[in-house]
């Protein structure tokens, strides 16, 4: 997934050099050199619960939750909760205001009314935002994702609020963590760009969302992504399309495609069986085709209906946006929203598209 989110994260750090929609150096500067930051190197085993926490030596990092929900009337809702950390410079962490970390939270609610997003920013070092591994707690202002018991991130409470919405959800999982790529080492190009990447895709969700003063009890499925890196994109990579899908029957699927300037896209994914066993998918095993486009608030056209094929696992479905205008009107804008799978098997999931 993820590359997705990186963009945003990185966006933060570059806020400085605000760039046109198609930056020469990859979306939001994710292709920039990462001198001085910790490199992502194959072979290091991930360690939990420590790796649930922040990784100060790395340049960017995120905690990313998407949830596909339904209310008692059977209407579909989507919820996003994201916390990005991005370091302005390499080097040791510093106390108080001189901390190099910037934090950015994004939250969104998609539903019958449409789509709404919220954003909040904070400096590191003063306690306004941060992540602690044990017990797990990630927060920025009044938004939080925190453990309510159990091991690691098994049971989480998730809350956030935007201009006209708020939500408070309980996430519970008994499935295992899923490590993408090579035991968490996830390549993002054929030239060595990579990130550490794992997920917890097995959350069951229950809770309450509130929109425009109306409260709705909801339940459904959620997927948490964790990723950190120092330079996840190659210089000529412009953006990505990313899917996290809950298939009817309990299997899960993560797919992403990093678009390159030369038209050669880098694809990869992970097939996750209902029992939690996973296999990495190579680019050649995946076919993604855009079927329909929707013009967004920024005037760009974005594919909102896709044909998704993974022949080896007998998957050939369409993924259609529930709300084609799920545009994130944040400082660095992108598309992120729930999709419905049409075909067999059916299912639900989330789609993120950047760099359009």
């Amino acid at each position, binding site marked *: 997934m993820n590359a997705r989110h990186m963009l945003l994260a990185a966006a933060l750090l570059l806020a*400085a050099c605000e760039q046109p929609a198609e930056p020469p150096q990859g979306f939001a500067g994710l292709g920039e050199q990462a001198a001085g930051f910790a490199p992502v190197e194959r072979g290091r085993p991930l360690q939990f619960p420590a790796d649930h926490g922040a990784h100060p030596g790395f340049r960017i990092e995120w905690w990313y939750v998407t949830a596909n929900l339904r209310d008692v009337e059977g209407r579909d809702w989507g919820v996003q909760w994201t916390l990005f950390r991005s370091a302005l410079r390499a080097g040791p962490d510093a106390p108080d205001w001189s901390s190099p970390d910037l934090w950015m939270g994004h939250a969104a609610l998609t539903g019958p009314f449409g789509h709404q997003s919220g954003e909040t920013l904070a400096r590191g070092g003063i*306690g306004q935002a941060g992540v602690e591994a044990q017990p797990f707690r990630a927060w920025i202002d009044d938004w939080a994702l925190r453990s309510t018991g159990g091991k690691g991130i098994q049971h989480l409470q998730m809350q956030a609020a935007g201009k006209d919405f708020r939500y408070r959800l309980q996430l519970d999982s008994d499935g295992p963590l899923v490590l993408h790529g090579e035991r968490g080492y996830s390549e993002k190009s054929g030239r060595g760009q990579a990130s550490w990447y794992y997920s917890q895709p097995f959350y069951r969700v229950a809770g309450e969302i509130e929109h425009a003063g109306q409260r709705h009890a909801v339940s459904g499925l959620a997927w948490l992504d964790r990723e950190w890196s120092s330079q996840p994109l190659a210089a000529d990579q412009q953006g990505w399309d990313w899917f996290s899908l809950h298939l009817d029957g309990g299997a899960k699927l993560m797919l992403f495609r990093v678009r390159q300037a030369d038209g050669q896209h880098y694809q990869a994914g992970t097939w996750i069986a209902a029992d939690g066993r996973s296999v990495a998918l190579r680019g050649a095993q995946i076919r993604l085709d855009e079927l329909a486009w929707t013009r967004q608030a920024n005037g760009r056209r974005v594919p909102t209906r896709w044909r998704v094929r993974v022949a080896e696992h007998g998957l050939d479905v369409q993924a259609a946006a529930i709300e084609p205008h799920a545009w994130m009107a944040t400082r660095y804008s992108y598309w992120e929203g729930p999709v419905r799978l049409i075909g067999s098997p059916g299912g639900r999931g989330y789609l993120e598209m950047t760099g359009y």
Partner: protein
Amino acid sequence: MDMLRLGLLALLGHWRRHRLQLFAILTGLWLATTLWTGVQALNGQARADYARAQALLAGSAQAQLAPRRGERFDQAIYLQLRRAGWPVSPLLEGRLYFAGAEPLSVRLLGIEPLTLPAGSALAGQPVAAFDLRAFLGPPGQAWIAPDTLQRLGLRAGEAALTRDGQRLPPLQVHAQLAPGVIVLDIGYAQTLLQAPGQLSRLLLPADFAARAPALPAGLAPLLQLQPPSAGDDLQRLTDSFHLNLTALGWLAFVVGLFIAHAAIGLALEQRRGLLRTLRACGVSLRGLMVALTVELGLFALIGGLAGVVCGYLLASLLLADVAASLRGLYGAEVSGQLSLAPSGWLLGLAIGLGGALIAGAGSLWRAARLPLLALAQPQAWRLAQSRWLRRQGLLAAALLLLAALCWRFGASLFAALAMLAALLLAAALMLPVLLDGALARLVGYCRGALSEWFVADSRQQLPALSLALMALLLALAASVGVGSMTEGFRRTFVGWLDQRLAADLYLMPRDTAQGLAIAASLEGRAGVEAVLPSWRVELRLQGWPVQLQGVVDQPLQRRYWPLLEQRADAWAQLAAGQGAMLSEQLARRLKVGLGDRVSLPADDGEQGLTVVGVYADYGNPRGHVLAGADWLRQHWRAARLTNIALRLVEGQVQPLSEQLEQRYGAQGLRLTEQATLKRWSTEVFERTFAATAALNALTLAVAGVALFISLLTLGHSRLGQLAPLWALGVGRVKLAWLSLGQTLLLAGLTVTLAMPLGVLLAWCLVAVVNVQAFGWRLPLHVFPGQLLQLGLLGLLTSLLAAAGPLWQLARRQPAELLRQFADER
């Protein structure tokens, strides 16, 4: 079109023969526009800078949360609010001192760019477009306006050193930044201001604040929500200063118009024949009026352009003084560099055009009603004059009534200035009436034929000279009034300062703890006669910023705190925590007097005290309350020990201050010797009135020019009146002397009348205008020496003005006088 062109050519031909008149008209318009534009440019620059200061954090109709007590609060409160979902942004403010011969200081503003309300702009730059990496650093950036950079003698990119040796992030110039401010990240600000973990204010997006959210429990006693408008104190505080300048600008404008009016009127009189001829030749009335108007427009354009240019020059000459005044009086930062706004040019031209129209309207009206056939009617000057005098007198009476009404019922600065304007105008209109009356009486005392003629002829000259005399009257009276006020204020102020600054050394500790430590170490020490600590709390009373100061009861304190009025046991009551003393301006604003109760918002609710004394607090735009130190500390936990006054044994100042500097200097203690403090205060004062005095002198000069030009233009028509006398055997030189005598007689009477008017004006200024503008009333001082000096100056001005034309008269060839007879043949 041809008609217009020919008409215009014929009309303009007049000026080739009467260059002096042309000069007079242009000079009048030029001077009027110059002074007006100059003042406008000064005010405009200042206002633009206030706006810059206010727009420092634009979108800054922002509301804010300010501490209820003290000036700073803990950063934890910020985090608490953020976690409660409040979109607040932290801000730390303070003053940063730089080393230099004169202590240089700037306002340091530490901001947090990530949380600034969406849509904010800093120095014109949207927050979203910040180069965050550069701004946050390290090394970070210190934003500064070019004028501040220049004032501090620093260069862009330099990492400046503060007086206590701390290094700023590299300076980065931002043209749109307010003057006198350095903006940087809050982290650097906390370090530089030695306020780790401390904040001054929290900014809130206006839309959030508009919902009037309730503060989380526990914070309500600590913070208060201030609506967006609370930030414009500066504008309000300085308004009166600018209004005063504006009034002066208008005065000069009116005087300048007098000149133009006189010259235009004379030109019309001389062109009566020409106008008739033109119309007899078939130029339509309409065409003639258009031509005259176009001619007037040309004058306005030339005079206006020159005026705007010179106005800006004048303003740039005075700006440094005005800026210094504003900084000294109000702490308002105004750039020392004038920026030219295109709207300013247009406005200046428009005012020049408007002035020309006003000055020429009467003449145009008369030209429109000029009969086609000249009737050989003798000019009924006496009848016309008495009608004119009656009209002037009635108008003056009406204006006097208006002035009286303003005085009796007005309660604003505007009313006070309206009263002043009405009074001055009434006096000006009354002048010819009074002069005529005086001359009429004088005739009774005349014995000789010549002296009788002398007086009678002076009366006849009145209408022609009256405008110039009025200008002289106004300028002189203004000089006397403003001079008396300034000089009176100076004496009062210096005397007050002498008393107020009776201690030898003043210490400003970094914080209360340091202050207490220093005070304790000095108490009872050899060479130290008295240690007077004072405690401070900032409040708002009826929306006005007020400083509450707590002092200890010591004989020295009593001595150096002069009171305007007091109850018998004032100081004892103060020490006992039962009484408070108020600054004069605060007492006026709150409308309280001795014996009344004032209520102050303390930690433990409103605390009432009896007013036992009122003192002068000149130059302080904020309110000031004096209370007992113990009482103050009891009710305001956050009260800070802000300064310690020391009375020392002779010769101890130098050694002790060196000792203290060495011991505490690096820890933020600041010391000021009495002499230095007094010098600064006096300098501020001097500069405050430097601009006023300059404008005043210019106005007097304009009046002199008005008189000169009136006399010059009158010179020609005077010949007709003087020629018969010459024919009857009065020599030319004698005639010239007589004429000079006449001018001096009229000017002398005017000067004589200007003196009491000036004193009246001074009274209005100190007792009415100052009270409304600044909140303090000054004793009325009259300085006979100053009056005499100004009177002589007035006479000298008239003498110089009269000398030129009379010199010409005395040198006139008899042939020219003869022509008076021959012409009539």
